């Protein structure tokens, strides 16, 4: 009770402030560039994320050209890439730079910042009923750190020795010794600086999300009434706060090794005849530090996507999400377990095999909450009344990718099978489905669903359908055959499959995959056109276009600083009262009190409040006849 009172005054003071603020004239700079409004920051994250995604996708098309046609020249590449594609053929070390930067950008800039940054910023205040984030200034800083990180990463393409090229996991010693690969020169330094800025950005974001979720929920919004999106963002932020600093410590040690002659990761090394003085370090240490972040990172990527789809599937099936509590507990389970599974990336690195066995057990346990989530999605669709908005299609696509990618995880999580599959195309196929495609589908799902909230307009549905089907089928055509290459023992990060006799049978498959990749990349034009065109010329949206229950749709379409004019609405119920029997509409927003829905209230709605139950019983006995009649109808 006390906390509610404090909260109310906080809201009041903030509201006063907001009112005052209205008289200010917002300049272009404070409104669009150094904005402290969470909705604007969300859009900044989204558009930066989309641009990064397009660049990273373009990089993937470049190396797909090399893989698909290893003996063909593309002189146009020389025009653009110069010495990195002499004679129109990408050089092996530049190929490695391409895969490295593609991975880094996609994982960190697109699927972490672009996904969490966008939707946490947009939805946490709007779905919880807060005027803004706990610290709008920190929020702004978070975006600008992220932006700087992006620019530095892009800048590494304009360095003489090229961008970082030791793979997105930048395992030392390769990443520590410029002699071993040119990309480990200035390019790697820029990578490391960019990553530190990025981690700073994501920490500022995550702390903000956590404090907002814990402290700034509107009246009546207790934790068990939060939509699953918020649960997912909240747990993701906790994951980020606990794991990202470990990456920074790893990166700092690597910087020391590179620039100040320490030996944290280096020992017993002779590069091109030169005996290095380093002794006593261990490259395995980096792998422990990296994957202590790296594995939670894949859940940082996928959990917001799962949260978004939970919301979208429930809304568009017109059904409550099946097993809300189980969904939350699964997320919590995933959050906790994700910290103790990192070793499954290291089964064959020479880590003690017994330790590997332990990591195998924890890894396969994490499949249980994931399976529960999948089955709950299926149960939500069952006997629903499904509306196929583009967002819904992408949500269904996510479930499909999550299943197929998750199942191959059972192979890789098994240490014995990993011996033969480690670092092959099987791994590439696995994580591109389960965290690449699934997470990007979650992001696209979110964009289609909350576009009206962000821009007040609707995206074109039919272009959305086209985009979905091309991308969905394309992604499967690209990644499904890769499993089989991996089973045959084709390692990843190979510049060409031409040097080994047994790989040559896969050359035609590679050409096929490259075509599929190019076509699905071109299909994204449908999205980009739709997105940017609709920002300006899309059909005007109504306030609640998807007839959704959550709070953001009670805020006016026109954005205003502080989100709601006047008082923030109070929340009375959980967010999933869809198609409740006895109610006229098939949705009841969270802000509708039970007193207005007497005909549809159920006993457990009152959470044991005796007074409310009594009132309901009285009403029931009075109108029982009506209710029965309604039931028959």
């Amino acid at each position: 009770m006390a906390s509610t009172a404090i909260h109310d005054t906080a809201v009041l003071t903030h509201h006063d402030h907001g009112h005052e603020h209205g008289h200010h004239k917002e300049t272009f700079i404070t409104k669009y560039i150094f904005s402290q409004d969470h909705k604007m920051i969300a859009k900044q994250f989204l558009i930066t994320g989309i641009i990064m995604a397009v660049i990273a996708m373009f990089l993937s098309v470049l190396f797909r050209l090399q893989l698909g046609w290893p003996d063909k020249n593309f002189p146009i590449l020389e025009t653009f890439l110069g010495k990195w594609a002499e004679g129109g053929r990408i050089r092996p070390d530049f190929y490695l730079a391409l895969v490295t930067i593609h991975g880094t950008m996609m994982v960190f800039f697109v699927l972490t910042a672009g996904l969490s940054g966008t939707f946490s910023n947009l939805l946490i205040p709007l779905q919880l009923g807060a005027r803004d984030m706990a610290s709008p200034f920190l929020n702004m800083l978070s975006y600008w750190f992220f932006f700087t990180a992006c620019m530095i990463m892009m800048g590494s393409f304009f360095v003489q020795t090229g961008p970082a090229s030791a793979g997105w996991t930048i395992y030392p010693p390769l990443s520590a010794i410029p002699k071993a690969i040119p990309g480990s020169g200035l390019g790697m330094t820029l990578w490391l600086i960019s990553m530190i800025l990025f981690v700073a950005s994501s920490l500022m974001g995550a702390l903000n999300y956590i404090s907002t979720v814990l402290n700034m929920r509107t009246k009546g919004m207790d934790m068990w009434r939060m939509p699953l999106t918020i649960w997912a963002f909240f747990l993701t932020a906790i994951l980020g706060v606990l794991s990202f600093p470990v990456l920074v410590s790893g990166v700092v040690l690597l910087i020391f090794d590179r620039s100040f002659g320490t030996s944290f990761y280096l020992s017993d090394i002779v590069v091109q005849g030169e005996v290095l003085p380093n002794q006593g370090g261990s490259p395995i240490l980096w792998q422990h530090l990296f994957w202590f972040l790296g594995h939670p990172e894949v859940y940082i990527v996928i959990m917001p996507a799962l949260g978004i789809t939970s919301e979208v599937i429930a809304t568009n099936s017109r059904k409550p999400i099946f097993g809300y509590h189980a969904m939350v507990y699964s997320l919590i389970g995933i959050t906790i377990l994700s910290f103790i599974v990192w070793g499954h990336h290291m089964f064959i690195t020479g880590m003690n095999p017994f330790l590997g066995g332990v990591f195998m057990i924890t890894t396969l346990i994490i499949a249980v909450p994931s399976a529960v989530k999948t089955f709950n999605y299926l149960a939500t669709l069952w006997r629903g009344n499904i509306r196929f908005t583009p967002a819904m299609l992408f949500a269904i696509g996510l479930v499909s990718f999550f299943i197929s990618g998750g199942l191959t995880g059972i192979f890789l999580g098994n240490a014995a099978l990993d011996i033969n599959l480690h670092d092959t195309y099987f791994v590439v196929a696995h994580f591109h489905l389960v965290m690449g495609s699934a997470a990007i589908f979650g992001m696209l799902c979110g964009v289609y669903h909350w576009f009206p909230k962000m821009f007040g307009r609707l995206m074109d549905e039919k272009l959305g359908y086209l985009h979905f089907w091309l991308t969905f089928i394309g992604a499967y055509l690209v990644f499904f055959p890769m499993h089989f290459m991996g089973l045959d023992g084709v390692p990843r990060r190979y510049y060409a499959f031409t040097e080994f006799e047994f790989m040559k049978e896969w050359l035609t498959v590679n050409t096929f995959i490259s075509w599929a990749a190019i076509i699905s990349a071109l299909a994204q034009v449908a999205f980009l056109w739709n997105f940017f065109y609709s920002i300006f010329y899309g059909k005007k949206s109504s306030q609640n276009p998807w007839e959704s229950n959550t709070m953001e749709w009670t805020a006016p379409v026109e954005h205003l600083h502080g989100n709601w004019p006047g008082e923030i609405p109070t929340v009375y119920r959980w967010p999933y009262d869809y198609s409740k029997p006895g109610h006229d509409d098939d949705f009841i927003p969270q802000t509708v009190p039970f007193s207005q829905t007497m005909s549809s209230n159920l006993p457990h709605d009152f959470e044991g409040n005796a007074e409310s139950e009594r009132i309901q019983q009285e009403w029931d006995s009075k109108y029982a006849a009506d209710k029965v009649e309604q039931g028959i109808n």
Partner: protein
Amino acid sequence: MRLKKYLNIRWIASIMVMCALLVNAIPLSAQLADTSSTTASSSAGVNEGAADSSALKSASSEPLISTVVDTAASAKLIADFKPEKDFGPLYKSASYYVLLFFLVCVFIAIIGKVLRVYELSGELQGKKTKSYWQNVQGILFIVVLIAGLYGVYWSYTVQGAMSMTIAASEHGEKIDTMFYVTLVITTIVFILTHILLFGFSFKYRGSDTRKAYFYPHNNAVERLWTIIPAITLTVLVVFGFITWRSITNVPKEEQDKALKVEVVGEQFKWNIRYSGTDNIIGKRNFTLITPTNGLGIDYKDPKSWDDKLAGEIVLPVNKPVRVAVGSKDILHSFYIPDFRVQINAVPGMPTSFQFTPKYTTQQMRDKLNDPTFNYLLLCAKICGAGHYNMQAKVTVLSEDEYKAWEAKLPLFYNDDVKKQLQVAQQKMSSENNKVTLITKNNR
């Protein structure tokens, strides 16, 4: 408002096409002829590619045994391409693709407009088109489900057959059994869940006349589908754990019995050392690495005196082998897919893997009916520009053949090497003296 948009798109589209045409600035007929020729050449591209790669192969065929990647040769190859070719037609074909894409876009835009007009006219007559599109999506899900299931069946049979190799080691067979068990379980789950996912999407596609079934939870069902995956996974975990331990946890006496071979990776080749008559690999120290002593073998350790260097890996069949893996420079990964063997090569940290080859190379050739088959060692950890070609041939012989081969290997620690080492050592120590002198003087 709508009309304005209408015009907008048309203008943009037509400007796009015009631009593309201007860029080409070639008569349409010539274009057509050229496109046909380029498509022909692109379809021939694969064959050409094969030819080129064989050229590349022949250029580097000699060092195949020693597996030195001569980047110089490939650089030369690239340089060879550069001067003679006229890139004009290739640029042209690139712009054709761009034009083609524009045309596809325009085509889609036109279809979009037609659909819009159709819908608007339908709306005027009071028809609802919304549910039409709903049905289309639902049906598409069923079509994709059926096509997808067939696709899965096709790739399991065709590509699966391409990828399934015979496990040529004892533990490899255990891994394969484990793999097939997991494959059967996951495939069943994959197909069932997808039938449900896409089937539900089709069956429960929206309609205005129906309301969804309010069904927020069912604890019994939820418990059921927590417990069933948990049990299945427990079985897999136990099975996997036992297999993993049996492969990696080799008892001491078994380890001693095994033939010891050392394989040390460096950019971009594998160095192979046999342990000789004592079956113990002599010590190695990276500070001793010189051009003559590439591995830095420590000859103060008498166990190293009988060690032999080899250009390729040769193993006796049906005899356990313990490979000690190391790296001179950066991480590599010792990976022989046919044996189901992989372990990382880590500088500063020795790793090892014990396995028993089951078939000789000749037996495999007979089995696969492929007279050119060879076991291959490849590098599976990113290690630089030559990563994709860091290979070594692995040959498995019968025990007698192996012994004969091993006997022929020369000792590395011969008189020449002794002399060279002495000279080098003297030089080193004199240099060291110099250094100490200089530092003393400086002080």
